[in-house]
């Protein structure tokens, strides 16, 4: 089925300071095609979409829409050219009616003709099979229906290309079915749909074509029917290019009678991870493996009590404790380096020094401030230890590169001398050299007796560092791999098949 091409992106490149987000990426969308855009964190999916919709300006390459070379400068302009986007976060006004949300901002009339608008809306909702009434307030609709209203608006504006960015992440199964029915209807009308999701099963259910990106590069375009799940996963995760031959992970020094540093049973949190058991020994490095959205971050956040813990029992060094807030966890010797460095990790305007001493200061309490001299000593010590490249300790952390920012956040936790440190995607978005440095540091810490949990989107990185992999899928632990000879193949097989029985 080779139908008419409506969008062709050729040789798209885009870099941000220190990161090449897209390098020479091609993308083709055909009429009436549902095209899944796949890739792990930082692969460049959203950058590609933002280039297409005019949020970012591309550095190189061209966008050919209906045979014409076009340049978009804003999402509004993209919309006027027939490219509609529906984001995960719904960009509608909850306090207006469904009909208003479909038509507001599009007419130049000074007055609203309610009757006419409601009639038009009712007709469109009907024809698309969207279960909503034009006069109901949008906030009274479910998220799925709100998303459909957003799609209906785009369709009514004659969109030929519809981008659905993670539309299903907050929908339940039933709602996903409805959304898919709508997508099929649009496909039949000849709309080209770009579908971004991290749910593999959904990709196989609905998409015709898959384009895989990794580290800002195009891996390839495939027919969905011709690409097995395991192949897709290996294309998404791939291998990082780094020489790590001298790195040697080691078995944790456990004896049979040792007490785990941290042990949880039936732990679950408000973020929606299913109750799980977890333990880690002294000096062990383990990791949560799984695709984005599989619940790996939610699990460690539950351990650190970063999300509201809803059930479970926690023992630290064999002693029962109650962790209700991150501060409780910190006081018990647990450190957590969050996935979202920009928002949860660094405090942008503060200096490198203040960022380093932050956690220690919090643990001491703000009424017993560290002296300036002490703070400077600590900061200098860790800048040297971790090789942080900064002009001075007073430099605002914002002006450092991603890798160095990450090291500062690491230093912050090391300063508190945790016995258990959780690193969630510590190597994301940083250059290969720093990646290897961080991996080595993890192994060195383990040698010193610190227990670590390490999470990464790159499976080979995890295999190098972790002696035990806990495999997750659909917010549930589906298996465990341990021993020195685990291969990427083993892990990918488990991710691909592990959850099958539960879906």
């Amino acid at each position, binding site marked *: 089925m080779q139908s008419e091409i409506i969008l062709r992106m050729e040789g798209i490149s885009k870099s941000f300071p220190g990161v090449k987000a897209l390098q020479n990426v091609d993308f083709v969308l055909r009429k009436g095609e549902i095209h899944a855009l796949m890739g792990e964190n930082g692969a460049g999916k959203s950058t590609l979409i933002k280039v297409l919709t005019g949020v970012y300006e591309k550095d190189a390459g061209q966008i050919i829409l209906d045979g014409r070379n076009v340049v978009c400068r804003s999402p*509004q302009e993209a919309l006027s050219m027939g490219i509609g986007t529906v984001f995960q976060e719904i*960009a509608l006004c*909850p*306090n207006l009616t469904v009909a208003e949300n479909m038509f507001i*901002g599009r007419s130049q009339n000074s007055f*609203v003709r309610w009757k006419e608008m409601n009639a038009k809306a009712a007709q469109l909702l009907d024809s698309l099979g969207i279960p909503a009434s034009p006069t*109901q*307030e949008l906030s009274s609709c479910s998220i799925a229906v709100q998303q459909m209203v957003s799609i209906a608006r785009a369709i009514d504006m004659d969109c030929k290309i519809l981008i659905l960015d993670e539309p299903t992440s907050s929908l339940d199964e039933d709602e996903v079915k409805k959304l898919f029915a709508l997508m099929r209807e649009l496909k039949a009308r000849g709309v080209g749909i770009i579908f971004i999701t991290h749910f593999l099963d959904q990709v196989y259910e609905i998409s015709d074509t898959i384009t895989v990106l990794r580290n800002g590069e195009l891996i390839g375009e495939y027919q969905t029917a011709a690409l097995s799940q395991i192949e897709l996963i290996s294309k998404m995760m791939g291998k990082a290019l780094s020489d790590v031959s001298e790195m040697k992970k080691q078995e944790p020094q456990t004896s049979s009678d040792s007490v785990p540093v941290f042990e949880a049973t039936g732990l679950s949190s408000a973020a929606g991870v299913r109750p799980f058991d977890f333990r880690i020994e002294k000096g062990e490095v383990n990791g949560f493996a799984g695709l984005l959205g599989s619940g790996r971050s939610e699990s460690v956040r539950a351990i650190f009590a970063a999300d509201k813990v809803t059930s479970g029992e926690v023992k630290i060094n064999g002693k029962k404790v109650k962790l209700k807030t991150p501060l409780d966890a910190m006081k018990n010797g647990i450190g957590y380096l969050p996935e979202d460095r920009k928002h949860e990790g660094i405090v942008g305007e503060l200096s490198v020094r203040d960022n380093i001493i932050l956690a220690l200061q919090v643990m001491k309490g703000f009424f017993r401030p560290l002296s300036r001299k002490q703070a400077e000593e600590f900061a200098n010590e860790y800048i040297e230890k971790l090789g942080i490249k900064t002009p001075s300790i007073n430099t605002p952390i914002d002006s450092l590169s991603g890798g160095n920012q990450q090291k500062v956040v690491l230093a912050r936790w090391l300063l508190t001398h945790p016995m258990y440190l959780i690193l969630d995607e510590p190597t994301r978005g940083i250059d290969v050299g720093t990646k290897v440095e961080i991996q080595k540091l993890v192994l060195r810490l383990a040698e010193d007796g610190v227990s670590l949990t390490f999470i990464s989107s790159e499976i080979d990185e995890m295999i190098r560092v972790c002696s035990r992999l806990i495999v997750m899928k659909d917010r549930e632990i589906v298996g465990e791999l341990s021993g020195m000879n685990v291969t990427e193949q083993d892990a990918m097989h488990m991710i691909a098949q592990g959850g099958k029985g539960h879906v």
Partner: protein
Amino acid sequence: MESPNTTKPKTRLSNSNLLFMIAGIIFVLMYGFALIRYPGSFMQFQTFFDLFNLNAALFIVTLGLCVVMIAGGIDISVGAVCGLVTMACAMLLQSGAASIWGALLLALAIGTAFGVLHGFLIAYLEIQPFIITLSGMFLAQGLLTTLHKDPINVTMPAFVALRNYTIEIPWLGTVNRLGYFIPCEIKPGVIVVVVLIILYAILMKWSRFGRNVYAIGGNSQSARMLGINVKRTRFFSYVICGLTAGISGFVYLMTTGAGNIGNGALFEMKAIASNVIGGILLNGGVGNLLGAPIGTMTLLTINELIRAAGVQSNLQAIVSGLLLYLFIVLQSIVMSLRGERKFRIVLPPWLKP
């Protein structure tokens, strides 16, 4: 297996209308209570009309502020602008340099000037509305005291005639103790109030501008994505608010006939309270414009009730404060029971549905 939250198309009351209804019910209950408890004073229609006769300016200020609040903003300069207008107009009229129309024009000009200034700073330079209008409040107060410190009684004959002009309603009134029928009286300011309520209600419900105001109040980020000019809409919401404050100053002068540095004092606070009682939320995007006069009426009725009860004046403020708490908590509970994320408050277990 059918998922429990399958959505069926159903039209329920919107949040704006629900809060409006609550406001209406509160007012009716309040006034009903007043009628039963103090029939002597509340059983007269004139008492009801006097709420409007004496407080026309407050009603007007509340309307303008309502537009800004629905847009998600706040304007605390309105009281001071109203006061400044009374003094400026009084001086102008008293100097004999201008007619009543000239004074009206001055009132509109002052109000609009403040509105444009605030609108520009808040919408285009994106500065916090609270700070900007606080500055505006000080500026207007300062100008007011600089203009004239002592009260100015306007003695211009044409104006005095306007001030004393009343409209009698021949078929409505009360019979006094001596058996004379006294018809109810309405001041011209009330006409202004009614006209503005109708105008603004139409503006907010049927005009493109009004709907855009709701949209930016609901979610300005989304509104921008939907193609609404958020800055321009926000700008004009403040211009309208300023203009309305100007009108209220003129109506204030029409009611009292004197410029005074105390004029319009605390109007901004009373107007905010009125709007909140009337179901216009400070978060923006939610509220029916008709809630503004309902809220003002409720607030004034509370004061009347307390006065009728003969409570000491310091207790009056306390009681008004407590009642305000009560209403607002009540609103929050109702909204929260609706399961709106935006309004969720922590409910004690015995209140959970």
